[in-house]
């Protein structure tokens, strides 16, 4: 167990280092932040001074090691725009993003999993076909299209809900639905196929053959097995709680982390972008780690061979 945890933590650390490095390289390749922040017609001396102030005049590898050393000391840098600590800037936005993504996650799980189970239990029936049709529609429609569609109907036509902003809980409804629908659809399809796979297994027939009532066969024998693959998908959803709302926040002018990311990328505000990416990588890696540990809890076959679990996460 200790060895397993140790190797997973090492992998997690390596992943985070790779993400940070990749972000660093891409941001340096994609334009000069001094030029962009100071404007195209800023005097060359001013641009030069800006570079010197932010250390952009040093060789890239020096910048890289400085940056890394700072991260290890817990310093994520300051925004080039307003000079505040990047981490503070990002942290301010997290509650707003979670206000959308947490209820959306509840919708995904609360709607998607029961829908998938119901469809599987009524395979090829009207219910199954209806659920699957909705699910296909739900995950094929891009979130910005769905978002605009919802705005068109509920804000513009019916006038029931506001189209954007963050003034009251009513403002959160449309973005939450937009975020939740796609994930619920994915989860419904996934749960359905996991359930069908399990219901076809010989041990389900054994349970029926020993007189277990169908309801208990489903809850006691099928679901614990179907949960194993479903947990993977839910894990990804938990991992994207911070960064999963970039598009939707933009559509609904919601001041969360996602919109901060879009603005910061546009401005080449290096420290802010890197800080967000680091945060995203850390949430993803953490949820993957939890999923790996959950596999061990859910599936006794993986308890003694954690290597097999590692490949699927």
């Amino acid at each position, binding site marked *: 167990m200790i060895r397993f945890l140790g190797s997973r933590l090492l992998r997690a650390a390596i992943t985070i280092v790779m993400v940070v490095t990749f972000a660093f390289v891409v941001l340096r390749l994609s334009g000069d932040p001094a030029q962009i922040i100071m404007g195209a017609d800023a005097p060359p001396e001013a641009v030069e001074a800006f570079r010197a102030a932010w250390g952009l005049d040093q060789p890239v590898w020096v910048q890289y090691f400085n940056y890394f050393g700072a991260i290890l000391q817990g310093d994520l840098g300051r925004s080039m725009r307003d000079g505040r600590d990047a981490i503070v800037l990002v942290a301010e936005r997290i509650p707003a993003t979670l206000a959308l993504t947490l209820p959306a996650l509840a919708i995904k799980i609360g709607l998607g999993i029961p829908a998938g189970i119901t469809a599987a239990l009524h395979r090829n029936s009207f219910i199954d076909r209806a659920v699957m049709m909705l699910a296909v529609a739900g995950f094929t429609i891009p979130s910005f299209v769905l978002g605009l569609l919802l705005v068109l109907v509920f804000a513009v036509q019916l006038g029931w809900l506001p189209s954007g902003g963050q003034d009251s809980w009513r403002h959160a409804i449309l973005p939450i639905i937009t975020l939740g629908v796609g994930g619920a659809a994915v989860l419904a399809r996934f749960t359905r196929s996991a359930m069908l796979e399990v219901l076809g*297994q*010989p*041990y389900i*027939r*054994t*349970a*029926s*053959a*020993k*007189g*277990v*009532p*169908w309801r208990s066969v489903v809850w*006691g*024998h099928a679901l*614990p*097995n179907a949960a*194993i693959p479903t947990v993977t998908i839910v894990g990804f959803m938990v991992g994207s709680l911070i960064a999963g709302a970039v598009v939707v926040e933009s559509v609904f002018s919601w001041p969360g982390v996602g919109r901060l990311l879009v603005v910061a990328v546009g401005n080449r505000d290096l420290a802010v972008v890197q800080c967000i990416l680091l945060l995203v990588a850390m949430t993803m890696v953490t949820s993957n780690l939890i999923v790996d540990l959950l596999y061990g809890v*859910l*599936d*006794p*076959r993986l308890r003694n061979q954690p290597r097999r679990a590692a490949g699927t996460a």
Partner: protein
Amino acid sequence: MTALVALRDLHVAFDGQAALRGIDLDVAPGEAVGLVGESGCGKSVTWLAALGLLPAKAKVTGSVTLDSQQLLGARPETLDRVRGGRIAMIFQDPASSLNPVIRIGRQVEEALRLHRGMRGAAARAEAKRLFDQVGIPDAARRLDAWPHELSGGQNQRVMIAIALAGRPELLVADEPTTALDVTIQAQILTLLQDLRRETGMALVLISHDLGVVAEACDRVCVMYAGRIVEQASVDALFAKPTHPYTRGLLGALPPLDGPRRRLAAIPGGVPEPWAMPPGCAFAPRCGDRMGACDAAMPGAVMVAPGHRAACLLATPKPVAREAVHA
């Protein structure tokens, strides 16, 4: 003796294609009946259908009675009491027949709770006793094992323990030894025979192996293409096989003594369900085929007391000609 379980004119079709075409079979209390035939002949389907274990798309007609209680179309609560309680069933692949995420002891205790109302320490003690009875070593510790930690033979013993938990009057064993090593096969067969002696339960042994059936059963039913073509006591079947298919099966067995001879294979293959001949399904492969064979399905004829064959060449015992199939 009245039958414990009686199947009458049992038909099963999947998507309009017949898998069983009229099965009549009685199992008496305490009796051991073997069901043999090639894969796909319907021997497993017969008992899955009888216990209502086939998927919903299977169309089942006919009659299955347990002590004159009709099981076909019975309410789920009724079936749940019968399954595992009065009729238990074990399957071919023990490793995948046990739930991988439930400890084996709990899988036995579940059956004890359902059929004997036992819980907690009492259920656990009884589960341990059952493990001892089916020959699982170190039973007390094994209760907490997972199925993947056990060998195939041990898992089949667990399956048998689950089956015994409800004290069934009939155990249906569907190819219980096919997935196991030969030495383990013999142990499991011996175990089944011992348990039958101890408990007095009836046994239906489904197998493609005539040798296995001959060893463990009193009576044999030979199935071909969804029908029983011959049934007789084990001795009578080996001494006087009547149906050409039975003779073919016996001819394909290597003799234990006497000179070595070439094994006689039955030419051709089983007809596909969508291309079933109008008459006898075995006619296309039969060396004794006559014109009349293709006219209609031959009914079962009693050739001796307790010995019936569904072949036009079978000579009925004078007086009692029994046409079971209309």
